[in-house]
C-alpha cells in the first residue's frame, strides 16, 4: 500500500492526523507531512478511514 497526497487539494485540516497520527502530521508551518508513505497492510483500514474522511478528498491509496 502506498499513500499519495495531492498537496494542492490538501488544506491542512488535520482530520487525517487525528485518525492516523503515525502516518500524517500537520506541522507548525501549516503543511501536511506524510511520516510513512508505505505503511504495511495492518494499517489499511485506518488509512482507508483517513482517505474517506479527508474534507477535500486529497488522499489516495495507490
Amino acid at each position: 500500500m502506498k499513500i499519495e497526497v495531492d498537496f494542492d487539494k490538501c488544506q491542512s485540516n488535520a482530520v487525517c492526523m487525528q485518525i492516523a497520527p503515525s502516518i500524517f502530521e500537520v506541522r507548525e508551518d501549516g503543511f501536511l507531512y506524510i511520516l510513512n508513505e508505505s505503511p504495511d497492510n495492518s494499517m489499511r483500514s485506518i488509512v482507508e478511514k483517513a482517505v474517506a474522511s479527508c474534507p477535500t478528498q486529497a488522499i489516495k491509496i495507490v
Partner: protein
Amino acid sequence: MTQSSIERCVIVGASLAGFRSARELRRLGFKGEIVLIGEEHHHPYQRPPLSKQILKGTTSKERVYLRGTVEEPFSLRLGVTATSIDQNNRVVFTSDHEDLSYDALIVATGATPITPPGLAPSTRVMYFRTLDDAVKLRASISSSMRIGILGAGFIGSEIASSLVGQVSDVVLFDASPTPMAQALGTHLAKKLSDLHRKMGVKTCFGEPIGVVETDAGSTLIANGSSKSYELDLLVVGVGVRPATNWLGQDSGFQLGREGALLADSCGRIDEEGVHFAVGDVASWYSPHYKKNLHIEHFESAVNQALNVARYITNAEQVVHELPFAWTEQHGHLIQTIGVRTEGSEEEVITKDAQTVVYFHDGLRLTGAALFDGSEHLPEIKSRITNSLE
C-alpha cells in the same frame, strides 16, 4: 495532434487549472516548451483559503501559493495579459507585445465577478475574487465595522462565516429565501440559514436589494424591502462570468448557457485538438450526466487540468470523476458530490449531528450533499456512479 509534434504549449491563465496543467504535462513527460502567462503578479495560488483562513487570519499569504516542483520547469510570465488570439496562425497576442506562437493552447482564464446592475463603483463596495481582494478585506476590518455581503452562494456564505465575531455586524443579503440552495437543496440550505443566524450573522433573504450611498464619509445603506441596514462596507459575491472576452466575438469557439467554453470530455474546444479549456472558463462534457456541465469548483479545475495533460501526452487514460465541492462554515464541513438538478426530490437522512441529503431526479440518484458526514462519501460516490450508468 500528437505530442511529438507539439513544440510549444501556451497556457493562458496562471490559475490553479493553468498551473496544474503545466505541472502535470511535465510530470507525464511532455518534452516541448511550456509557457504559462498570468494576469496577476502573484505566483499561482489556490482560492479556497481566501474566503476562509485568510479572512480569519489563520494563514499567511505564502501558505496559499501552490507548491510542487517540476524537474524540467516551464516559463511563467506573470503580470501579462493575453489580449487576443489568431487561431488560424496559432498566435497569442499579449499585453507586453511578446506574442507567442503555439501548437497547443490551454485556456485557463477563469472567471470575473458579476457586477450587479445599478451598483455604482465606490470605495465602500468591493468584489471578492483574488488574493489581493482577500488581503485587502482582511486588512480593512475592525471590530466596530458593519459589513454587508451581497450574495449568499459559496463565497458570500463563507465570507459571512469567517467575519462574524471579528466585526460589529455581518449582514448577508440574497434575493433567494435561503443560502446556497442551488447546491445544497431546500433542507440543508434551511439548516445553513439557521446556523448563520445562530452564529450571529444577520440575514436578509428573499428580498430585492437596493443600495443607497449617502454623502462621502457617511454610510452605505442597503435596503431590503422591509428593512434597511447601515453599512461601512459592502462585499459583493453574486457570482462570476467566464472570462472569454479576450478570445473575441467571432472566435468560433462555442459557448454554453453560462458563457463558458464548451469542451468535450477531454477538454478540446475545437475539432483539431489544438485548443483546450480548463477550470472556471470551461464547460466539459460529462460522460456521467451525458451533457456539458459548468462547474466552478477547485476539484473540477484540478481534474480537468490532469485530464488535458493526460490527453496531450497520451501517457495516461483520461479519468472522469463526479463533480465534488466542499465548504467550511462556522466550524462545519459541507460537501456536495454529483449534481443537484433543479426540482429534484430530496431524501434526507439524519444521524446524530450528521445529515446526508440525496438528490433524486426521477429514477436516477444524481447527487448528494453532506453536512459533517465526510466518511460516507466513498459509499455515496459509488451509489451515484452506479445510478447514472
